[in-house]
């Protein structure tokens, strides 16, 4: 039996390893940042910067005509310009790198709560070396900051759900709502997920015989806080656009996702560059490429001046198109999910586009193998680990709901970036598999792990032509295509 002194040493030892992993992750990300700058702006990065400049110059949050984006990320960039002027983007990237500490910390915390110290430490090590996730810390997408809020939010929610009678439950739930609510102002995709993830706690409380009114009291408080956090910006939108909304991107995503041809945003910029060089473009398998019915794409409702009304009309047109072509809709979803889980990433996309300086591209083949390997192994081993090792209970419910939610949003418009909120969970699954193996496990769990991994491999086979093309272009340059 361990003495209290031994316990103290064990805790201190774990704490030191925990801190060491965070420090190593931070150093790797800063090294990557140092090698990556001056990485060229790409697509939405430029759009975010443009919105930040508009905020600085006019004091106004402009919309993007096709999107009404949440305000926090342009606001963050504007603050960086205020503090560092020409070096504003470097400051933003540096702060993002620092924020990733919260991702590493929360990943290990969740793993420790669900499994043990070993799984926590291994999940931390995997977090260090997950190159696509690390790369987002120097790219100007809101993902890093969002995950830095969402990870701790999830850790608090899981703690509250696993210990529903703990005195800190109320504070944990309020912390969850606070962090997740701020996160919605960075990425509105989590808007509906945040209340949804409270359901496993409701289920736990119900099972232990808590009265309905008490459950209502417990659940409604974080929901009210969430509403309070979202209200100021929603009211601003009501005043400006006549619509009480946090953000509005669905209409444009429906245009891209429920239309006559397939669009994958990992591919589009690469194909645009290939077209400019008069080279053949990368294409998905023929049956999944377009509706094959000689249909013209339906057009956006450009004639509608008001933004939310225009996006609503786009949504209506997309749904009408889907009702008329259910077969194409189903075929299209197969390719979308395949795009979502393809072992490519924005880092490999940027390498293919030549956006990184030579300080980084001199190791491009190694980086592509590292990034693609990290993505593929995390997806495969993470899925097997979660299917086989995740303890039944509210945490499993939270993981399943989050997985299902991002699978559903990813089936509308897919690209590798949209699976990022699932990566910390997959890292935990991966670590549990590495530390605990597959035995002894009940047969249904093994079947679940086998089925999910087979489905993943099938999806990789479906997406292989474009995945291979993207990875080749990333490691050798666009000239290898053709």
């Amino acid at each position, binding site marked *: 039996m361990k003495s209290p002194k031994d316990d103290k040493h064990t805790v201190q030892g774990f704490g030191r390893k925990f801190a060491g992993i965070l420090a190593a992750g931070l150093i790797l990300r800063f090294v990557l940042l140092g090698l990556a700058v001056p990485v060229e702006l790409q697509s939405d990065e430029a759009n975010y910067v443009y919105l930040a400049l508009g905020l600085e110059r006019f004091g106004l949050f402009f919309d993007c005509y096709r999107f009404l984006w949440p305000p926090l990320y342009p606001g963050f960039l504007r603050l960086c310009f205020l503090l560092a002027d020409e070096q504003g983007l470097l400051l933003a990237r540096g702060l993002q790198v620092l924020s990733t500490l919260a991702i590493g910390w929360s990943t290990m915390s969740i793993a420790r709560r669900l499994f043990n110290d070993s799984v926590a430490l291994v999940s931390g090590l995997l977090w260090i070396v997950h190159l696509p996730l690390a790369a987002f810390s120097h790219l100007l997408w809101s993902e890093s900051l969002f995950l830095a809020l969402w990870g701790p939010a999830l850790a608090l929610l899981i703690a509250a759900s696993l210990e529903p009678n703990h005195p800190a439950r109320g504070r944990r739930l309020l912390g969850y709502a606070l962090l997740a609510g701020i996160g919605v102002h960075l990425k509105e995709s989590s808007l509906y997920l945040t209340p949804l993830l409270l359901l496993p706690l409701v289920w736990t409380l119900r099972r232990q015989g808590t009265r309905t009114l008490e459950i209502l009291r417990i659940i*409604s408080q974080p929901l009210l806080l969430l509403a309070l956090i979202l209200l100021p910006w929603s009211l601003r939108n009501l005043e400006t656009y006549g619509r009480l909304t946090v953000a509005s991107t669905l209409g444009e995503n429906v245009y891209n996702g429920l239309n006559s041809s397939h669009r994958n945003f990992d591919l589009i910029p690469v194909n645009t560059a290939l077209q400019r060089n008069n080279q053949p473009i990368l294409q998905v398998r023929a049956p999944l490429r377009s509706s094959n019915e000689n249909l013209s794409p339906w057009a956006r409702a450009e004639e509608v001046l008001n933004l939310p009304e225009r996006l609503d009309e786009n949504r209506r047109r997309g749904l009408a198109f889907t009702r008329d072509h259910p077969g194409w809709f189903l075929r299209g979803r197969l390719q979308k999910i395949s795009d979502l889980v393809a072992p490519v990433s924005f880092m490999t996309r940027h390498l293919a586009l030549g956006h990184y300086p030579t300080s980084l591209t001199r190791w491009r083949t190694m980086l592509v193998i590292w990034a693609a390997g990290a993505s593929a192994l995390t997806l495969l081993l993470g899925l097997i680990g979660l299917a086989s090792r995740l303890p039944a209970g509210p945490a499993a419910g939270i993981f399943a709901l989050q997985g299902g939610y991002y699978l559903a949003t990813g089936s509308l418009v897919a690209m590798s970036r949209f699976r990022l909120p699932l990566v910390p969970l997959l890292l935990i699954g991966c670590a549990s598999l590495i530390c605990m193996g597959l035995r002894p496990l009940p047969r249904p769990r093994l079947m679940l792990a086998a089925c999910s991994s087979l489905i993943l491999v099938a999806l990789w086979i479906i997406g292989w032509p474009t995945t291979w093309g993207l990875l080749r272009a990333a490691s050798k340059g666009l000239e290898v295509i053709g």
Partner: protein
Amino acid sequence: MGPAQSRLQGPGGYRVRAWRGHLVLLLLMAGLLALHLAGHRSDTQLRAELAHLLHPAEQSSRGPKASRDTLEALHILLNRPLGFSRAEGQQLSATLLAEDDPLLREFALSIDLCRLSRHTALNVPDTQEQHVLGRTPPPMDAPWWLEYVTYRRKVGGKQVGGRRRLDNLELLWYRRALRGESPPPEELSKRLLRAAREARVGPIPRGQ
């Protein structure tokens, strides 16, 4: 348990005190709603505030320099459902582009007015396109660069004036132009020529 506390108990001994947090949150939300209602301006009120810009011919003198309030009022009115028609938008664009205040001219090139502009055969906003790119050669000084970036680097496609996305060098020039420094003319000329060539022969770069 004191008498005051027992009065707070509902059926089955359920404490009302436990709902205090909810009440505080609801009160804060009500406060925000009240602030919103108090600050709400109707289309008519906004039009009255902006009369010097919307009806310049009827005003004895030009309006004061654009304040943040003026820009905010314009932004709201231009984005409201039924706030502004295309014809009014085009008129207002022309008025603002003729103003001495650079901020008002730049605002006329923003998404708010470009979306309301009349379009040429090239499907670009006519008034704004003429203002930014109609002069040969363009001034290529700091004020013009701020206008160019505001007009040409926006999101939303060519129908609102956007063409290419901003890049690092253009951003650097923009930061310097905010301090009054003009972009280097030779490099800018080359860049504009290349952009014009790409615009004619290539697809519009896009992606996400």
